């Protein structure tokens, strides 16, 4: 197994600053937006974007946590079961612009599951997608509005995102089996 560091802590920080500015530019500020992080990596990223919006605009954007396990289409075929974390969206998403945040965009099935779940919570004005890494291999017609870095990968390769919150250090690794 070979590991290659694609992004370090500083680079991730710069990317998140850029994504934050792109979100604010596209939405002309932060007035009507909310952030929803997809468990677990997306939540850490959404928290950081929230803090950056607060620093830049002085606005506390609502932040929700979404676990998509109950909306996945692969319950029969996934070999591994992930630990489920309760979803927590303590505000109305009706008529808001929801920024969905995830660490890696791959087949698009997680994003679809997240959008299905959001529709059970209300009727957002818009859903936008922000991802740190887009590794390609889409199986559904889904594209991110904000992409940190596009990294073309082979199916055999894996992308691993480490977070300070869990491993003590931020990094993005390419793993070849």
């Amino acid at each position, binding site marked *: 197994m070979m590991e290659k560091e694609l992004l370090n802590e500083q680079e991730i920080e710069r990317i998140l600053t850029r994504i934050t500015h792109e979100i604010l530019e596209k939405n002309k500020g932060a007035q009507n937006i909310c952030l929803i992080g997809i468990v677990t990596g997306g939540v850490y990223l959404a928290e950081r974007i929230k803090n950056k919006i607060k620093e830049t605009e002085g606005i506390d954007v609502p932040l929700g946590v979404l676990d998509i396990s109950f909306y*996945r289409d692969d*319950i*029969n075929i996934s070999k591994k*079961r992930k*630990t489920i*974390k*309760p979803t927590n969206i303590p505000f109305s998403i009706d008529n808001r612009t929801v920024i969905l945040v995830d660490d890696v965009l791959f087949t698009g099935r997680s994003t679809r599951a997240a959008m299905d779940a959001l529709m059970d919570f209300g009727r957002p004005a818009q859903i936008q997608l922000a991802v740190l890494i887009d590794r390609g291999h889409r199986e559904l017609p889904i594209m991110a509005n904000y992409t940190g870095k596009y990294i073309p990968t082979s199916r055999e390769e894996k992308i691993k995102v480490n977070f300070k919150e869990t491993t003590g250090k931020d990094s993005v690794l390419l793993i070849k089996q």
Partner: protein
Amino acid sequence: MKDLVGIKELSRQDIEEILNTAKAFKEVLQRDIKKVPTLRGKTAINLFFEPSTRTRTSFELAEKRLSLDVLNFSVSTSSVVKGETLYDTLKTIEAYNVDYIVIRHSCSGAAKFVASHTPASVVNAGDGTNEHPTQALLDAFSILEVKGRLDGLKIAIVGDIIHSRVARSNLYLLSKFDTEIRFVGPPTLLPEQPPDNVKLFYDLKSGIKDADIIMLLRIQLERQNAAFIPSLKEYFHVWGLKKEAFSYIKDDAIIMHPGPMNRGVEISTEVADSPRSVILRQVTNGIATRMAVIYLLTQREV
């Protein structure tokens, strides 16, 4: 794991996984849309060979919240009254290609028998005096919600222990955690030889006064083939939990009952409706816990 036949077969880790998943489903039950598409296209059948309202409706609601197609089978309207065996009933049901069978039966071991003769996932909804695993799981979930932990608690189980599958499943579950378990009741309703980790109390006050959890059981007259207590009135007088108990039990003790409760037999109205009672919370948690069990039993390709 294919089936949930009893708590006895589960590890502490299995139980923690079920309780953790139940927490996520409890959040689903608090939404405006209380339904998830998780098991769309799959089918569950509720096979109830014994009368039941709350357990059957709780399972049915849990199944519907998971988007399962649900069939209900009750013995009074089935071919069982015409003499069909459990095995033949099961084979007929299997021909429907169901994915989950929830079974309640008056014979201990019925759930295990069914589980070993079908590829469907089987959930035991109570078999004779053996086990009622989802009741113990929902009790544990309710305790965890209120107390934040299971370890380090003193739990008094009061009443008809020998006839109770709820007591048995709770005993197995709580024994996997660092708990002090007490059986409290008249000698005729307590086991003569309790497990080593259980303390017997033949006096209500001493059994419950410093307990964190007071778990009352229903007097199971339908399972008693002899006179174990002189009368229900006398049972209430000596063993019923009445408001006087508030003067000596712990301030933060909670009162539980698996239902259906008999007011004026094991519990007084003042206690049943008091803020210490978590009986209705147990009912709500039953749905989330049963959703978790069914979800986790979903068979996966390997």
